[in-house]
């Protein structure tokens, strides 16, 4: 009984923020290349990834293939479930979504979620190029 409680406690402590969490993503497809040869990935209606807690901002180059001025797609970006940025996409051009990260709390990683209101066939949401994580500038460095 005691051994069971100890094992469960240890497992929960480990799973609070395991080392592999930093590279964990969900809702992203495989990398492809557009006609300019630039790599991108599809998201589904929702996608999430983690960034280090000391990041100051992220830059997410994205576009929607289904958004039009009449039927725009709304992209919401949340940081640890708090809305940080909302973007209305009205055409298929690439655009940067810049998100400033609020100060970190106790965790070493922040979770960023992308949500889009329109998809193609229920599966393909946004096309997203390489996401840039911008670190906080350390004074004197």
């Amino acid at each position, binding site marked *: 009984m005691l051994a069971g409680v100890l094992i469960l406690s240890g497992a929960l402590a480990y799973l609070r923020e395991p080392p592999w969490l930093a590279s964990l993503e969900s809702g992203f497809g495989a990398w492809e290349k557009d006609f300019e040869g630039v790599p991108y990935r599809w998201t589904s209606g929702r996608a999430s990834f983690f960034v280090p807690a000391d990041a100051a901002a992220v830059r997410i180059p994205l576009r929607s293939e289904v958004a039009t001025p009449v039927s725009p797609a709304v992209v919401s970006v949340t940081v640890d479930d708090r809305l940080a940025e909302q973007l209305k996409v009205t055409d298929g051009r690439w655009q940067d979504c810049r998100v400033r990260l609020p100060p970190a709390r106790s965790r070493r990683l922040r979770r960023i*979620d992308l949500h889009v*209101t329109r998809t193609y*066939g229920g599966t393909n949401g946004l096309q997203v190029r390489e996401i840039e994580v911008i670190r906080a500038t350390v004074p004197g460095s």
Partner: protein
Amino acid sequence: MSSLSTRIVQISAVLLAAGYIGVYATGRASAPIRSDGFSYYVYLPSWFIFGDPTLAAVAHDCCGGEFPEYTAIVRWPGTRQWVNAHPIGVAIMQAPVFLAAHGLTKWSNLSADGFTLYYQHAAGLSGLIWTVAGLWVLRGLLRRHFIEGVTAATLLVVLFGTSLFHYATYDSTYSHAYSFFLFSAFLDVTERWHRHPSRGLSILVGLAGGLIVLTRHTNVLFLLVFALYGVTGRSSLGATIERFRTHWRELAVVFVSATAVVAPQLAIYYQATGHALVSPYGALGFDFGAPRLFGVLFSVQKGVFFWSPLLLLGVVGLAMARQTVRPFLLPVAVFLVVNTYLIASWWDWQFGGSYGHRGFVDSLPIFALGIATVFEWSARQPVRRAVTALAAGVLVALSIFQMLQYWNGVIPISDTTWGQYRAAFLRFR
């Protein structure tokens, strides 16, 4: 010291876990919640995360407001509400592990959207867990009729000589692992109820029967096993009717508990369509005038006896059954015949992509009774026993090998031709 059949179930659990890890660690399968598994599971995030029985909120969150076509979740004409072709039974049985995964997801700060890592493998492992539970219940049922060795050998053959292992690991979010458990449980409690009817057993019969209907609607036919158990002729039919009449209170408990289990599904259909009884598949349906009986039984495409020839032993065994499992004989024979006709009449008689014919995985506990009967018969004579053991061993090995071929993409997921089968025979690549 645990018995041989108990150890077989324990070893099976370990091998299933190893198989599951192998499937996903080597990238042979994509995330568990996929294809039909998505539709069976999607109720859980809808109920527990979005508090929405209509599926609209989860459609908005996961999929931009529209479910993908492969899910068979469609907007009902007239009401525009979402109707899921796959009922709620699997989700109900996945709920305990889903809630554990939800807690762990919050704890680890993963996205609590119902589809991230822990949800995926909770859904995947749930099918595996219910398969082990099904083997355990089946073991108890078999042990009431057969010796340890026969029970143990039957469990091994059912798990490794058919596509059950595949549906407990690779495609464990489909309904078949759940139905395997429920059929085992229903056979078990039906027999116990008819021997000693009680209030507790009545609730269990109703619960198992209701969940069978909720997991796969056409399996409502399997409830015949309870109604016709013990009927072997006119006199035994009278005895069965008399038993029901004597124990009408227990029978009422069975009916009430089964109705209580099924009621939420009827409420969901009513809310979405304005009718409690609907065909959620819409225009897709049965062609009873042109059943593909040879196809579902013997064809290289998906024939159940072609891909799991050991199940022929089950048929032979049921025909041989005398005292031991005879009370089951008439109801399971009626079920197997009618169910085979139904499967063969379905517009997609191959049931899409699958290893073997997945429509028969649910019925494996029935075949197990027949297989055990043959094993018991062969165990009485050394030469028979050796021949049966050798044949069963070879066919189990072939089944495992062909399952690995399927996982490697060597065998097509459907419409396999004789030429493709011959070209791939005993080849890994």
